[in-house]
């Protein structure tokens, strides 16, 4: 059965979105992305190295014709910075999409949801397709959608922590609260974590460190790909309810006395 994934008229072939940071080199990045089967990669906006113009560029390895490039505002701690980076990213000419981050704290990298809400509202009005990276808080998720977010990206756990989906119940409530897609972003440490996110009903999972930080990132990219597909299929199939006691699965009729 067809299971299409469309946000604001943009169709995504893959429900696994992949970050491009923290790899050994661009070659490893490209191989992991290939293996993941994704069609969406996130990138950061940074100054060009003026002195060393021969240094390779990420987009030499990741073909923007083949992948949807999703710029982020990683490293932004204020609304003003997030707006500036978003506008620069759009001007750099990839798309109107932005994975909006307004970070509140160095140690946890938790989002500053007040700033995030403000920035979402402004950018949505400017025609951006805003994907805010947010806390696993259903009320804030609702406010972000009301402010014009195209989807919400709640964290499973702190960025790069690999702790998995720490509060599946909140993610579930977010899914029931907002009518936009929900994409789990951050915290996924291994394949089962992404399967859990998808089994909850999330529309996609964005993973960077979980792949890039694995001992074999390319192999982990393949594992994540299958886990996301399996989790989505399980969600669509509808799992059995959890019960405390056993229910026999073989008939009792015909047993020897």
């Amino acid at each position, binding site marked *: 059965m067809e299971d299409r994934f469309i946000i604001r008229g943009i169709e995504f072939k893959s429900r696994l979105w992949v970050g*491009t940071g923290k790899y050994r080199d*661009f070659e490893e990045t490209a191989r992991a992305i290939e293996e993941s089967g994704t069609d969406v990669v996130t990138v*950061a906006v*940074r100054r060009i190295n003026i002195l060393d113009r021969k240094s390779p560029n990420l987009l030499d390895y990741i073909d923007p014709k083949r992948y949807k490039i999703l710029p982020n505002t990683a490293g932004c701690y204020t609304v003003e910075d997030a707006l500036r980076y978003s*506008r*620069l990213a759009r001007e*750099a000419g990839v798309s109107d999409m932005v994975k909006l981050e307004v*970070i509140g704290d160095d140690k946890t990298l938790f989002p500053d949801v007040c700033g995030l809400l403000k920035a979402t509202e402004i950018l949505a009005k400017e025609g951006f397709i805003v994907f805010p990276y947010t806390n696993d808080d259903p009320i804030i998720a609702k406010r972000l959608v009301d402010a014009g977010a195209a989807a919400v990206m709640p964290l499973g756990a702190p960025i790069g922590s690999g702790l998995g989906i720490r509060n599946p119940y909140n993610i579930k409530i977010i899914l029931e609260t907002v009518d936009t897609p929900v994409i789990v972003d951050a915290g996924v440490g291994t394949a089962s974590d992404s399967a859990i996110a998808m089994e909850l009903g999330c529309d996609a999972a964005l993973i960077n460190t979980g792949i890039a930080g694995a001992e074999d990132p390319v192999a982990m990219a393949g594992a994540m790909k299958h886990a996301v597909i399996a989790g989505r299929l399980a969600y669509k199939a509808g799992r059995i309810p959890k019960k405390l006691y056993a229910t026999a699965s073989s008939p009792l009729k015909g047993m020897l006395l």
Partner: protein
Amino acid sequence: MRIRLNGEEYITGDVKSVEDLLKELKIHSERVAVEVNLKIISKSDYRIFILKDGDTVEVVSFVGGGGYGRQVYYTGNRV
């Protein structure tokens, strides 16, 4: 002309417009964005936007990134 380019002092050659500067730097304008004194210059204006002495210019592009704060170096199980 002396400008501040990506945070560093930079002395240009025979540069008038943003387009001239990018040409001098051998930067293809395709996937970059240019900001002069905090104002984003749209690609269609690169030719007509004239730079002047003392301008602060930023030229940015895309680098690898997922979602994290200030540059965080991976310190996990890989050596």
